[in-house]
C-alpha cells in the first residue's frame, strides 16, 4: 500500500512508496515481455484519461498501461472537451464522476489542476503533468530506468541539464532522486535555472563541462523551441554549443554512465543524434519503463489487491 491516496507529486512520496512502485513495475515489465501482454488486475475498473493539453507519448503510455491491466478507459480532452467550451473544471469533473469512474489520469496546462480534481471527485487522481509543476509518473519511469541499470539509486550522481525553470519533469524528478539518496546537480543557462535550488537541496551551475565527468547519469531536458528567439536563449546553435550533449562531451562521461532524455528530442540541439543512439543511451528504455511503471502506479492506487497479479 502506498502512503498516498492519489499520485499528485513526488514530494509526498516516501522512499518506501517509490520502492514499492519500482518493484511492482518490475513484475509488470515481465508481463510486457510476454506474447500476451495483459493481466486482469483492474478488470471492471473505469479510468478516465483527461488530457487538457496535447500529449502523445504520455497519453499512449497510460492508455497501454490501462489496457494491459484490463481496465476500461475513456479518453477526453483536446478540442472537443467541455473544458474548452467554457465549462469549469469542477463541473467537468463532477459530471464525469457522476458516471461512477474509478480514476482520473490528468494532463493539464496549469499547476494544481490535479488537486482541484481531487476536491471534486472520490475517484483516484493521477497527475500526468500539471503545468510547470510536476509529472510524477515520468519521475518513476526515470528512476526505474536508472535503477535497472545501476541496481540502486542511492549515491548516484545525476546531472539534469536544460530548461529547469519551466520543467515539470525536473520538478518531479529532483525530489524523487533526493528521496532515494541520489546526488543531483542542476545545469542550465541562468535564464533557465530554478529560482530557489535550496528548496530542493541541490547544487546548480551554468557549466555542463565542469560537472560532466563526475556524473553517473546525464539527464538532458527537452528545450521548448518557443522559448528561443531572444526570450531566454539566443539560438539553437548557441544552446548546442554551450549546453548540448555533443559527441565530445559524451566522450568525457565516465565509464558505465548513462544518458537519459524524456523526449521528444530536439536532435542537434540539446542532444546530438549519435549520442542519443549510443549504447549508453537509455532513452528507449525510459519509454519502455513508462508503461510498466504506470501499470504499477495504477495497480497500487486502485487497490488491485483482490486480483491476481499474474
Amino acid at each position, binding site marked *: 500500500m502506498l502512503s498516498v491516496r492519489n499520485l*499528485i*507529486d513526488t*514530494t*509526498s512520496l516516501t522512499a518506501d512508496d517509490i520502492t514499492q512502485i519500482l518493484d511492482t513495475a518490475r513484475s509488470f515489465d515481465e508481463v510486457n515481455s510476454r506474447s500476451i501482454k495483459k493481466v486482469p488486475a483492474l478488470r471492471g475498473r473505469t479510468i478516465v484519461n483527461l488530457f487538457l493539453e496535447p500529449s502523445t507519448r504520455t497519453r499512449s503510455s497510460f492508455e497501454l498501461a490501462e489496457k494491459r491491466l484490463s481496465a476500461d478507459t475513456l479518453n477526453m480532452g483536446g478540442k472537443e472537451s467541455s473544458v474548452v467550451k467554457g465549462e*469549469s*473544471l*469542477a463541473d467537468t469533473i463532477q459530471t464525469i464522476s457522476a458516471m461512477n469512474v474509478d480514476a482520473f489520469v490528468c494532463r*493539464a*496546462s*496549469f*499547476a*494544481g*489542476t490535479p*488537486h*482541484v480534481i481531487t476536491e471534486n471527485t472520490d475517484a483516484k487522481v493521477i497527475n500526468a503533468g*500539471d*503545468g*510547470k*509543476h*510536476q509529472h510524477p509518473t515520468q519521475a518513476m519511469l526515470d528512476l526505474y530506468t536508472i535503477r535497472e541499470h545501476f541496481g540502486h539509486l542511492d549515491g548516484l550522481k545525476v546531472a539534469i541539464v536544460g530548461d529547469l525553470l519551466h520543467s*515539470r519533469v525536473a*520538478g518531479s524528478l529532483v525530489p524523487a532522486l533526493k528521496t532515494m539518496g541520489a546526488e543531483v546537480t542542476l545545469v542550465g543557462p541562468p535564464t533557465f535555472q*530554478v*529560482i*530557489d*535550488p*535550496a*528548496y*530542493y537541496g541541490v547544487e546548480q551551475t551554468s557549466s555542463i563541462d565542469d560537472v560532466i565527468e563526475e556524473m553517473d547519469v546525464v539527464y538532458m531536458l527537452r528545450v521548448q523551441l518557443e522559448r528561443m528567439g531572444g526570450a531566454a536563449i539566443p539560438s539553437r546553435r548557441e544552446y548546442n554549443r554551450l549546453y548540448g550533449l555533443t559527441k565530445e562531451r559524451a566522450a568525457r562521461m565516465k565509464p558505465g554512465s548513462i544518458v537519459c532524455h524524456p523526449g521528444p528530442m530536439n536532435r542537434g540541439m540539446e542532444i546530438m543524434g549519435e549520442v542519443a543512439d549510443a549504447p549508453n543511451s537509455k532513452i528507449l528504455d525510459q519509454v519502455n519503463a513508462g508503461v510498466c511503471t504506470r501499470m504499477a502506479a495504477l495497480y497500487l492506487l486502485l487497490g488491485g489487491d483482490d486480483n491476481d497479479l499474474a
Partner: protein
Amino acid sequence: MILLKGAHGVDPQVGLDEPVDVLIDGGAIVEVAPAIDAPEGAEVVDCAGKVLMPGLVDMHVHFREPGFEYKEDIESGCRAATHGGYTDVATMPNTQPVTDNGTAVAFQIVTAEKVGLNRVHPIGALTRGEDGEALAEIGDMTFAGAAGFSDDGHGVQSAGMMRTCMEYVSQFDRAVIAHCEDESLTGNGVINEGRASTRLGMFGWPALGEELEVMRDIELCRLTGCPLHVAHISTARSLDLVRAAKADGLPVTCEVTPHHLFLTEENITDSYNTNLKVNPPLRTRDDAAALVEGLLDGSIDCLVSDHAPHATHEKDCEFEIAYFGTIGLETTVPLMMTNLVEKGLLSWPRFVEVAAVAPRRVLRLEPVRLEAGSVADLTLIDPEAPVTVTPEYFESKAENSAFLGQRLHGAASDVFVAGKRTLANGVVQ
C-alpha cells in the same frame, strides 16, 4: 441627541487616550468630557468596555460598480464597509467603464448617498481607460469629488507617461496613488518569485517588479513635486525606499494590507488556495515582519484592505487562472485587534493614526477629531467581540477572503456617520 457613555476615547490628534463621554447633536460632536449627564430626550449608548475613535477610513477598496455588479456593488460594498467599522472608503477606478471622468465620479458619489451608509470618495483614473496612454480628465474629476488618482490594477507602465500624470496632478492638491508593478518583470507571475514559485511550479512575480517602480515613482515625485502614495506595499526593500524618500523630505506616503502583514507565501500550500492569490503576491516571512515593523514605527502611513471582491466561479478554479484579490473590509479590524493590538504591539493611538487620521490626510479630507465642533463620524470597537470568518459573516456579495476559517476577536460594534448610527451593536442599519 445621542450620548456615548463610558467609552475609552482615543484620538492622537487631540492627545486623547482615556475614558470619555461624547455628546452628539445635529451631526456634530457638541461635547467631550469625562462625565456628561444625559440631556432630556437623548439616546444613551452604553459604551463600557469599548473604544471610541474618529471614523475609520479604508482608502483602497474595489466596489466594482459600474460594470461588475455580480461581484459587488456600491450598496453591498457600503454594507461591508459599515460592518467592518468604516465611515469612509475610497473606491478604485478599475470599473467598467473605467472611472476616468467627472460624470463617472459623480455617479459613485450619488449612488453612495442613496445607500446612505458611508462617505464614498472615488479615486479617478490617471489615464483614459487606464490604458496608460492619454491623460484622463483629472481636473473635471477633482471638481466632481475625486479624492486621488490612480491606475490601480496594473499601474502606468511608461515612465514618461507617469511623469506626465504626476506633473498634471501636481496642480490639484491630490496624491497620485501608485500601483507599482513593472509588467515587463512580473509578466505571467502569479506568486512570489522564490521558494514559493519553485515549490508550486508557477511563474514568479519578483519583488523587484514592485521595487523598481517604487524607485521610479519616488524619483518622479522628486522631479514633479506631486505627492506620491505607494499602494499596497509588499516588500521590505520597497519600504526602505519609502523611508529614504521620507528622510529626503519628499511628499511620499504608503499603505499596507492585512494580508501582506499576516500572511506569507508559506501559506500557499499544495492545496493551491486561490483566495491567497493577490496582487502584489504574498511575500516572504521577512517581508511581512518588516511591514509590521514599518506599521509600528510610523514608516507606513495607512492601513487598507484592498477589498477585491470576485464571484465564486472566478476563484473556484486553477490557481494560475484565478482572479487576483481577497476581500478585506470586514476582517481588517478583527485582524489588527487579534494580531497586534491585543498583543500590545500596536497602541490604540497608532491604530487610529493609520486607520483614520492618515488616510484622511492622504485623501485631502477634512480631519475628524474627538472634540467639540467636529463632525460626528465615529467608530466604536468592542475588543472582545468574537469573530469567526465564514461566508455568512460577510455583508459583501463576495466570499473570497484569504482569512476564511480564522477565529478572531475585536470588531466594530457601532458606526456613526454625521451622527447617524449606521452600525448598531454589530448590525448594519
